[in-house]
């Protein structure tokens, strides 16, 4: 590409010496407006350096006359957002859960604000779409372990489940196998009975044996016929929703090792208004009672 600069015969202008496929580049002077713009950018750079954070120093940097920083800018943005949310949050603060749910002015805010609060605080366990997973309840369906009314959901979010908080919801699913309460055979029989509740048993003999054990060991929480009890946090064993999976293996595993999922209390971490917002949002996901 490089070559010797020479004079172009036709135009009388020097070439730069650059040649591409025999095409040579003329070394014409730059247009004045271009030079002016170029100088303006230099002037602008100087102004920018004076105004804005620019030059790194050993332990710090030049802050600039305007003292702008992305951190302060974020704080301002957050303050602005909080100020814009304030009327809504005040409304939520002053209204009961039922009122919030029926308030048409809050409908949009509950969906948008609830979704963000959920994404920040709840999605780690329950999933971005509140779809849950093994051990983490799906909040979209109509099966509720601790109840699906607004009050139930509020209580659950505020105090959590099986944690150290005094008002936390507490119960225990014992490890019948690990703690030698039931033998392996008995556990298989109970599992067969539980499967029969949703019409999936294969062995009638084992079902009747399992039913006997179930009535001795399980009905105090899961109730007669395994319909569960939301006041005790005992899941309904007759429906199509399984927190830890509904296969024979999963049921045997639950019986053998017990289950004790934990949900932290959000009181103190989230404001009461945010908990109310989340309550109405979760209730709106499709399963609220």
């Amino acid at each position: 590409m490089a070559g010797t600069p020479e004079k172009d015969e036709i135009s009388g202008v020097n070439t730069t010496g650059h040649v591409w496929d025999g095409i040579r580049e003329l070394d014409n002077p730059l247009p004045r407006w271009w030079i002016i713009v170029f100088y303006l950018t230099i002037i602008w750079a100087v102004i920018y350096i004076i105004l804005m954070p620019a030059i790194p120093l050993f332990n710090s940097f030049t802050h600039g006359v305007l003292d702008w920083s992305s951190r302060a800018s974020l704080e301002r943005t957050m303050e602005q957002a909080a100020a814009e949310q304030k009327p809504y949050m005040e409304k939520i603060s002053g209204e009961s859960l039922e009122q919030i749910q029926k308030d048409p002015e809050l409908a949009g805010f509950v969906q948008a604000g609830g979704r963000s609060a959920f994404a920040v605080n709840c999605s780690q366990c329950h999933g971005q779409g509140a779809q849950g997973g093994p051990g983490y309840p799906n909040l979209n369906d109509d099966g509720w372990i601790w109840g699906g009314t607004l009050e139930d959901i509020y209580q659950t979010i505020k105090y959590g489940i099986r944690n150290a908080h005094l008002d936390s919801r507490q119960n225990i699913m014992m490890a019948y196998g690990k703690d030698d309460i039931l033998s392996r055979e008995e556990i298989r029989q109970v599992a067969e009975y539980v499967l029969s509740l949703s019409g999936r048993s294969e062995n009638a003999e084992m079902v009747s044996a399992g039913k006997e054990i179930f009535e001795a060991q399980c009905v105090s929480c899961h109730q007669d016929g395994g319909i569960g009890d939301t006041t005790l946090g005992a899941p309904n064993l007759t429906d199509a929703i399984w927190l830890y999976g509904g296969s024979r293996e999963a049921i045997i595993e639950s019986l053998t090792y017990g289950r004790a999922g934990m949900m932290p209390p959000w009181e103190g971490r989230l404001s009461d208004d945010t908990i109310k917002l989340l309550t109405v949002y979760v209730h709106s996901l499709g399963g609220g009672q």
Partner: protein
Amino acid sequence: MADVKPKLKLEETVAAAAAAAEPRGADPDHQGPVETVDVEAVNSKEKRAPLYKKREKVYPKMARGQWRKIKWIVLIATLAIYYLLPWIRWDRGPGQPDQAVLLDLPTRRFYFFWLEIWPQEVYFLTGLLILGALALFLVTALAGRVWCGYSCPQTVWTDLFIYVERLVEGDRAARIRLDKKPWTFDKIRQRVLKHAIWIFIAMATGGAWVFYFADAPTLMGDLLSFDAPVVAYAFIGGLTFTTYWLGGHMREQVCTYMCPWPRIQAALFDEDSLIVTYRDFRGEPRGPMKKGKALEVRGDCIDCNQCVAVCPMGIDIRDGMQLECISCALCIDACDTVMDKIGKPRGLIAYDTLPGVEAEARGETRKLKLIRPRTVLYGGLILVVSIIMLVGLFSRSSLDLNLLPDRNPIFVTLSNGDIRNGYTLKVINKTDRAHLYSLSVEGLPDAEVSVLGNGERAEVSVTRDSMQSARIFIAAPAASLSGSLTDIELVLTDENGQATAVDTVFKGP
């Protein structure tokens, strides 16, 4: 130093250099023939060009003739449209803006006479831009850069600015004289007046721009009482500056250096495109008209340079087709005027094609070929896009549905084993009345549809001229699903029984 051997040691080199530096004759032993190199310093002081080139000012002379007339008409028409369009009123009923053309950014509506374009119909604007581009291609293929020469805003405003300049300072010769004059009171007066008018026009240009984005009479009042939003003043300021600077000072440099369009247009030409051409076979050899000299031995060009004087781009069209030429045809007018005076036929400079000129030089005539593959292609594309847009425009529904299935979770198993899908439904009611739509599902017999917050009633109500968002749940027994995807339709029926359906899918395990 021909006697110096190729391989030299440093000492020898120094000695040889010292010997060569000695005055001749001092040591006859070292005297030898010295080679003179025929070379010139590439960057010699005489040849060194300055780092930047100062613009050489163009003083376009006033031309008179048919093309100039057309240019005036186009100038008046385009400027009138630009300045007056926002002031045209159009009654749309109470509570609606009554401005014929309005880009309402806060409410995200574009009003164009009887049309009201919503943001999701922005493809109409895209279609307009595509049409504009295709029209430009077609015009360029047919008649070269006439867009540049007649209707480009840069040309129109520059023309207007030159007109003002001519009014205040006089025509070309007077302007050249004035530039050379020392700063007298009269020169200052003329200059101040010229720039004041320019700035006034520029401000009107920037001012007219903002009227497209808000109710013009209200904004005019706000602007005058300094109550208008800062952004309006910022836009006026910015456009005032660019209009004044580009129209008053930059002028032809914008087209030659800044605008990419001339380069693109150069690729759109073919040999049958009309360009402003100097018929050299007729004009050459050129020479001034002198009494007594036979006209037969020389061409029609009398070298009066009128074509050069009127050119706003500062070129000589007789040099042939040039990048700078904007096909404005002012040189044609200037030359025709001269031809009339010396009693020669018009058209020494004219719109013609290159092969056309060659044919005329041979004494033949060549028909103008308007129908060529590329013009047919551009014309056809324009027709197709126009038809698509018109069909789209006339089949625009007053109800737009947008149904977005939940992606997470894609479906939910309910306690009774039913499968439920969630959707976000957006209903856009473009009519001026509120509507109540009842929802039903087609394609899944046992499906039940419900709307969040509406209890048992599967209904969505939408107020006039607005968009309503609703959470929709559709539940169906798992046994009724044939696979993991079922095609269904959500049907919205308004209070008059008018049904509108939207296709979607129902997902299951």
